[in-house]
């Protein structure tokens, strides 16, 4: 198994898998508890428009994805600033389609760069560059440090948004902040599992952990453990067997979720 990580590309892929797992699984706890699953799908698809724009103007596609992901977070945040997930879903749906349409438009304009698009649509963890890794490390650090510092605020707005607001907490700020962290996590995962599969990274780890945890803190740790297990094992399997890494990661993660449903609840 260690032989696999003697290669430079596998070492980079391992680091990318760790950054993705930790950031996505950390924030997925709140995605699941607040019912924001659609936000993950929306951000990922909207990011495609940003990827197209970035390729068009010749900058790192992750920067374009980041721009559109943050834009969606702010639009969705505004729609749901009073804590309503339903109102957010409508805004996300519109932006989802807008970003996707822009992405398709750029793909048709830039056919010679299509390979860059496909790498981000289906993910290509084995081809992460040093710049990608640095961006992923920075974004993942922001997500993890922010959740560690503001865990109780996030928990408070998740439990009862209005009561949090009424108690004097700046609940609206933390609402936006959480959405920005979801957007960052999606961008971290894009290079690893792609636009189409990133949704699984934002929901499955915490959904599986939810079935087995008595506390939100326990749920968060278990969620990270599930994401790390699936991403690293998917990476190792794909080294020995010629199968798509992103698909393996998501299949393993989804399987963990299905098994968790069958395990008697500890709550």
């Amino acid at each position, binding site marked *: 198994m260690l032989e696999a990580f003697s290669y430079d590309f596998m070492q980079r892929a391992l680091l990318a898998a760790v950054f993705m797992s930790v950031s996505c699984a950390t924030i997925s706890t709140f995605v699941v*508890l607040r019912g924001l699953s659609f936000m993950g799908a929306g951000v990922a698809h909207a990011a495609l428009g940003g990827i197209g724009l970035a390729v068009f103007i010749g900058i790192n596609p992750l920067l374009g994805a980041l721009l559109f992901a943050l834009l969606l977070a702010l639009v969705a945040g505004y729609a749901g600033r009073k804590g309503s997930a339903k109102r957010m879903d409508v805004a996300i749906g519109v932006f989802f389609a807008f970003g996707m349409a822009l992405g398709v438009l750029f793909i048709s304009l830039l056919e010679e760069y299509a390979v860059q698009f496909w790498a981000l649509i289906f993910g290509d963890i084995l081809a992460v560059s040093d710049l990608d890794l640095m961006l992923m490390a920075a974004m993942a650090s922001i997500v993890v440090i922010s959740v560690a*510092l*503001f865990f*109780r*605020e996030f*928990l*408070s707005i*998740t*439990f*009862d948004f*209005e*009561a*949090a*607001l*009424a*108690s*004097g*907490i*700046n609940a609206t700020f933390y609402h936006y902040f959480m959405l920005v962290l979801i957007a960052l996590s999606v961008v971290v995962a894009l290079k690893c599992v792609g636009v189409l599969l990133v949704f699984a990274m934002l929901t499955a780890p915490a959904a599986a952990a*939810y079935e087995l*945890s*008595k*506390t*939100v803190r*326990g*749920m968060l740790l278990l969620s990270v453990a599930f994401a790390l297990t699936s991403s690293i094992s998917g990476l190792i399997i794909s080294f020995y067997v010629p199968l798509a890494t992103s698909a393996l990661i998501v299949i393993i993660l989804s399987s963990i979720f299905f098994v968790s449903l069958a395990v008697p609840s500890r*709550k």
Partner: protein
Amino acid sequence: MPATGSEEALRLEGVTVAYGGVVALEDVSFSLHKGGFLCVAGPNGAGKTTLLRTILGLLRPRSGEIYVLGEKLDRRNAARLRRRMGYVPQLDRAERDIPVLMEDIVLMGYLPQLRPPRTLRKADFGNVLELLRIDELKGKPFSQLSGGQQQRVLIARALVGDPEILLLDEPFSGVDPLSQRIILEALCSLKENGTTIILVTHDINPLFRVADLFLFLKGRVVACGGADDVFNEETLRRVYGANVRVFTTDGEKHAAIGDYHA
């Protein structure tokens, strides 16, 4: 309507609140002295919860003025004044399926006072857990508690920040008789220690001897005064528009309204 004491905790002057074009509260005026106990009652849709949200600064009135603890409430001081108030929303507003321990919910009440990094010690609970008799529930998931126990935990959350005004929205709804009694005793104890209490309820009967002031709402103020002034069939009929009977047992007044007790 005058305050019944020297120092005012709260005063509303001609407050009108609307959602879009629909007026939920119209021309509401009253005042409450510090340490007073106000019971707000009225039928569904009377604007009771809207009144609490407006006092908290979560809704801005279309017209009128609100004074909280001597300060005129506006956009700039609303968050600061909210930190001097405790709010217990209706129990069903909370996400009760979240896997969170009872004490973690109570500790949420400290958040406005402490910025990260912070260390919360269990000792910081003070006597709030004992007051509401939930100290033995430590370590239990909130979702496993009964409705009455959950309500007491939410009240404890509002109390750990030591509020000067406590606002409660239907605290007896879905609550067993034991929890109702514990909550009432806790409120009486708080009142004795000078906390101002504003309680919204459908069931005014348990508050007959406890509240100083009753405010009956039906979009606007129908009646406001002490129990002896407003606890009568004529007033209650104007509020609820239903068959109302007020009867006395063991020296205590009770109201029966329609199919249920008011």
